[in-house]
């Protein structure tokens, strides 16, 4: 099992949620081990945090186990 960094790689916000890690994996790659918090991910992708929450809801509706 590859260990993952649960701190935002950019702003170092701690304790990233399962949903935050899940959306990182979905949008940046399944194999990543470093993650952004929601704000930094939105900034990186040039979208809004609400856009990301919409995507999370869609993934959850599809039954994706990466989300809670």
């Amino acid at each position, binding site marked *: 099992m590859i260990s993952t960094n649960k701190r935002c790689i950019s*702003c170092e916000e701690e304790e990233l949620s399962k949903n935050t890690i899940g959306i990182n994996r979905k949008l940046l790659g399944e194999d990543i081990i470093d993650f952004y918090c929601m704000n930094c991910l939105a900034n990186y992708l040039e979208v809004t945090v609400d856009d990301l929450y919409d995507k999370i809801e869609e993934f959850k509706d599809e039954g994706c186990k990466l989300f809670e």
Partner: protein
Amino acid sequence: MIYADNAATTKLDIDAFEAMKPYLLQEYGNPSQPYFFSRATKKALRKAREIIANCIGALPEEIYFTSGGTESDNWAIKGVVHGKKKGIITSVIEHHAILNACAATEKFGTNVKYLLADEKGLVSSDELEAIINDDTALVSVMYANNEIGTIEPIKELAEIAHRHGALMHTDAVQAVGHVPIDVNYMVIDMLSASAHKFNGPRGIGFLYIREGTCLTPFFDGGAQEKNMRAGTENVAAIVAMATALQKNCEKMKEVEVRLLNIESKFFSILDNNYLEYSQNGAYPKIPGNINISIKGTSGEMLLHRLDLKGICVSTGSACDSVNTQVSHVIKAISVPEEYAQGTIRISFGRDNSEEEAIVVAETILEIIQGKNGQVEKLEGKS
């Protein structure tokens, strides 16, 4: 927003929309009724049937209105299984409307065989010749593949089917209104079509059934469609379907030329930027259908990143809640593993512009080459 998923559905044609309005608001008489108020709807049905028949080289009485491609496919498959012959031959790259309908017939004692596809997605007439026999009731092979756009050798397959006394059905959902089709030249016995794939409304389609073909009715009920497909006709949608199909057929060549230019521009941008990808499918194919597998990336990730940029495409791989699964078509054509998971389908349609194709290509490059899933520390943070 850039809509580049026209193989999934298309924008309703404005003339088709206008054509359906009177049949929703004023001329709403049930065409089965014998009074004057239903005369206009009866005439509209007759005219729509003539227009559609003319677009595929059929007779008007050979056109049966259905709710769309899935119903048409199910009818064609399940309508032949009650005869003496129990064999059905289809291909491994069919749409699930065919694959699941064929599988469902096995409970009636059918024997379903599957033709393989080569790396371009073409099924082989030699293979059909080898597995067909006198017990084969039906050969069903799609006219054009919905994922990779490959156009199958339907005429050759139909001739083999007929030599062995079998019927030939083709799921032409991706082809009708996009490439020329003549059911007589192609010797097709049944053909499925869906209006929303050619700028008509959703929820309407048709099944072409060659005169004299022995097929059982799909629904039990009223006497509509010569007792073959019960249910009050959706006149407004039928009229709109005919309008859209006629318009698409009239502009087919013009649209094809434009789409080929758009495709060429799209690929030139990818090639000029050294993207490592393989193009899936064979020529001839459905114009505007681009299916590529990009090395070392995830098609699903790409789809969602493009979505966040306002670009709609489709993927050839999807998460099944735990793992990424490559589609049955991409598996069947043996796309190498390091490419297969990075499969996306971009299907440009008549409303797309070259500028949009450029944006789609450049955005793909930006996602793949610019950031490529690498988590970076953002400037000005931390």
